[in-house]
């Protein structure tokens, strides 16, 4: 059972991959699905490894990520 969960707002994501570069658990990965604006959006490669550290959301300039953590 994952300790954390990250919710991706695909409408707000612009595919800069900053979150991918900082996630310590390699949860996030460059996706190939585009949103309505034509930006590729981030995807989850290893959702079960998420520890809910929140680093990805701190780094995302566009507030596209919301992080939840096991209490």
């Amino acid at each position, binding site marked *: 059972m994952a300790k954390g969960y990250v919710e991706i707002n695909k409408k707000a994501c612009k595919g800069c991959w*900053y979150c991918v570069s*900082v996630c310590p658990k390699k949860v996030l990965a460059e996706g190939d699905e585009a949103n309505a*604006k034509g*930006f590729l959006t981030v995807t989850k490669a290893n959702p079960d490894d998420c520890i809910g550290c*929140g680093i990805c959301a*701190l780094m995302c*300039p*566009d507030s596209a990520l919301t*992080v939840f953590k096991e209490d």
Partner: protein
Amino acid sequence: MMKQITKIPAAIDLEKGSNDFCPGCLHSASFKIVSQTLDEMGLFDKSAYVQGVGCCANALGYIRIDTIACPHGRGCAVAGAMKRCMPDTFIMTYQGDGDLAAIGMAETMHSANRGDNITVIFVNNGIYGMTGGQLAPTTLLGARTTTTPFGRNANEHGYPMHMCELINTLEAPSYIARVTCTDPANIRKAQKCVRDAFQHQLDGKGFSFVEFISNCPTNWGMTPLQSLDHIKNVVLNEYPLGVFRDK
């Protein structure tokens, strides 16, 4: 039970999807920090800001703070007047380098010299982003822009201008810092500097100034991640980070 640990700041409106900044543009990051700080300090519904001219205007329509857009470069003069008329309102300007350091140099320096009780958020990406990548006063030596196709050369185009250092020669300003958002540690430091700058205004200490070293992946011709490396490896050598003054 999963508990939500991150929050979208109240000032950021994502209903229409994303803002109009290019992917990876750190304008989004500095706007986010400003918005988070307004929330944290309970200033969200007590604030108004002056919007510079240039790429920073891409935030219009996605930011839920009262905004005045003024003629190019005049942000500090307008903000200083607003603060005098509405002393209980928290007043900021948000300006890029073409706006604040080129056409707005006079207004910026005189506002700083008067010690206007405002907070200036200055986003320096070393280029005119919106108009297509021309030379700015802050452009690095050797950097190619559409108006310096062979690179900026000191003999012809002068040297990069350092706004924190210039303002730091004046008596009145109370807080001056330079930050960046290239990595989580620097984002945390930037959050602290913006908080401190806001506190200076709340304490009535006068002019507070935070410079964000930013990027322009579009006109630098880089991917967003390459532009972060460029800041770390090249730009910060010209523009060192730190708190220059904290009265």
